[in-house]
């Protein structure tokens, strides 16, 4: 039984089609990613899911509720972390959490939440004086203060430095372990690959693929490319005759072998048998970036 079901969603504003055709389902307890370039319709999709916008056609069901009919009930059970929403400059961390906790019938303990999000020593700090990462953590805390069943996190790590970004990712994994279903909207490939159980790739307002990160990569290209400098001369044919190998090329002193699946194992076995050492060995694999380019014909950033 999915907790979110979006079918053939369509939304147009001022003659511009923001979402043309988006369908997906999210299962309880998973981290579901919505990945796409800026302007692909990700935020609009999320806004229709959280009753912040009314869609033109299609259907949305969240926790079995129609967001526009049962908005109050939905908002009690769904936490949202939005892009571009700040807090008043002079509001302190604990005050923000205490205020938002008063909005929910079964709020989380704000002291525990501050501990979990590493904000305990910032409780008396005003919003203006927080760093980018701390603001983002407070924003996540606010989306969790109502003890939601689902948390929707939109462009969580945009604008964060690499360290804060990694810290935030660890945090999201902790949140999932509390049993919260997470919908993560992102245009960072690395983030999607690291965190998501499944991903919907959205481009120009439509879903182009839904799969696990590994499934998306495998579906696009199974090819591996191995580069190395053999420590002693070796014939190309030694590799070319292997079943797993597709091409063998020489680039200066380097050998470049491509193939599918177990090509690395096959090549290293041959090298070991011939007692050749592979200098500067590198294996290049298709990643989610390649998958995205293959699916949409464009780069993410």
């Amino acid at each position, binding site marked *: 039984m999915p907790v979110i079901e979006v079918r053939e969603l369509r939304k147009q504003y001022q003659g511009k089609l923001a979402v043309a055709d988006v369908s997906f389902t999210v299962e309880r307890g998973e981290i579901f990613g919505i990945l796409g370039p800026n302007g692909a319709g990700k935020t609009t999709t999320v806004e229709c899911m*959280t009753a*912040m916008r009314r869609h033109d056609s299609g259907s949305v069901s969240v926790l079995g509720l129609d967001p526009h009919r049962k908005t109050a009930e939905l908002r*009690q059970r769904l936490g*949202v972390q939005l892009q571009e*929403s700040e807090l008043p400059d002079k*509001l302190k961390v604990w005050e923000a959490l205490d205020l938002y906790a*008063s*909005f*929910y019938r079964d709020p989380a303990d704000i002291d525990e939440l501050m501990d979990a999000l590493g904000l305990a020593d910032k409780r008396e700090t005003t919003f203006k004086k927080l760093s980018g990462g701390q603001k983002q953590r407070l924003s996540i805390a*606010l989306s969790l203060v109502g003890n939601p069943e689902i948390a929707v996190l939109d462009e969580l790590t945009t604008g964060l430095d690499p360290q804060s970004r990694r810290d935030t990712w660890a945090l999201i994994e902790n949140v999932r372990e509390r049993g919260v279903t997470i919908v993560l909207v992102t245009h960072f490939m690395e983030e999607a690959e690291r965190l998501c159980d499944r991903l919907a790739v959205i481009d120009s307002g439509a879903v182009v693929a839904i799969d696990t990160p590994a499934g998306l990569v495998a579906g696009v290209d199974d090819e591996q490319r191995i580069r190395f400098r053999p420590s002693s001369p070796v014939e190309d044919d030694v590799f070319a005759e292997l079943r797993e190998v597709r091409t063998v090329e020489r680039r200066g002193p380097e050998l470049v072998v491509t193939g599918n699946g177990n090509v690395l194992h096959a090549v290293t076995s041959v090298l070991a048998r011939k007692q050749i050492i592979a200098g500067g060995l590198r294996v290049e694999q298709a990643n989610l970036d390649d998958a995205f380019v293959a699916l949409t014909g464009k780069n993410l950033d």
Partner: protein
Amino acid sequence: MTAPNSTPLAKLTAVEAKLFLRDAGAPLTVIGVPVALLLVFGLMPGVREPSPEHGGRSALATFIAPMSIAILLAMLALTMFPTFVATYREKGVLRRLSASPVRPSKLLAAQLAVNLVAAATTVLIILLLGALVLGMALPENAAGFALVTVLGTAALFSVGMLVAALSGSARTAGGIGTLAFFPMLALGGVWVPKENLPGFLQGVADALPLGATFNGLRETAAGAAPQPLQLIALLVTTAVFTGLSAKYFRWQ
């Protein structure tokens, strides 16, 4: 600290009040400017004595105190309140709230409540300070004075609400508010008393919200009833501008 089971609106109001007091500029301007006006003009020679020019009453009670109150209300309603609201929209504070179980209109209500309490407090300070320090007579038609204060506050805040509705950013809100404030001062008979304005402008002075408030306060301070034109102007302004604000207000 508020009780754990307090309603969201009570909690929002308490938080907004704290933020208002924490903003160094706001309380200082709200109390400081009108009180300074009262003291500076009130200490000038002759204004505390009864004068035939003011119907045998003092200029302090019938002109300077009403002026301090009208300027206080206009400043709060036309520039400070719209700037607060526009800042909340610009920074996405309203957007964040609109994704929570609480309607963002509650935040506007809380903000309005804080402004009204600040206004009421300052009006009392002006009257008490005038009476106790400067020996000013309290308004002779107290009920009329209170009525004009309430209607004037409603009218000026409804104009401020439309300023907030129409401005995209806090800077624009402050700008539009100030732009509305100064002509209203001039045309309301604050710089030049209504009696000294050319005939056709005297009606304008009683119809614009700042002027209607100011001149209504002058009438009632001197013991008369507020003029019908002043009361009607304030009621119509409130109705029209509240309607327009509701129509054009955007939460994000």
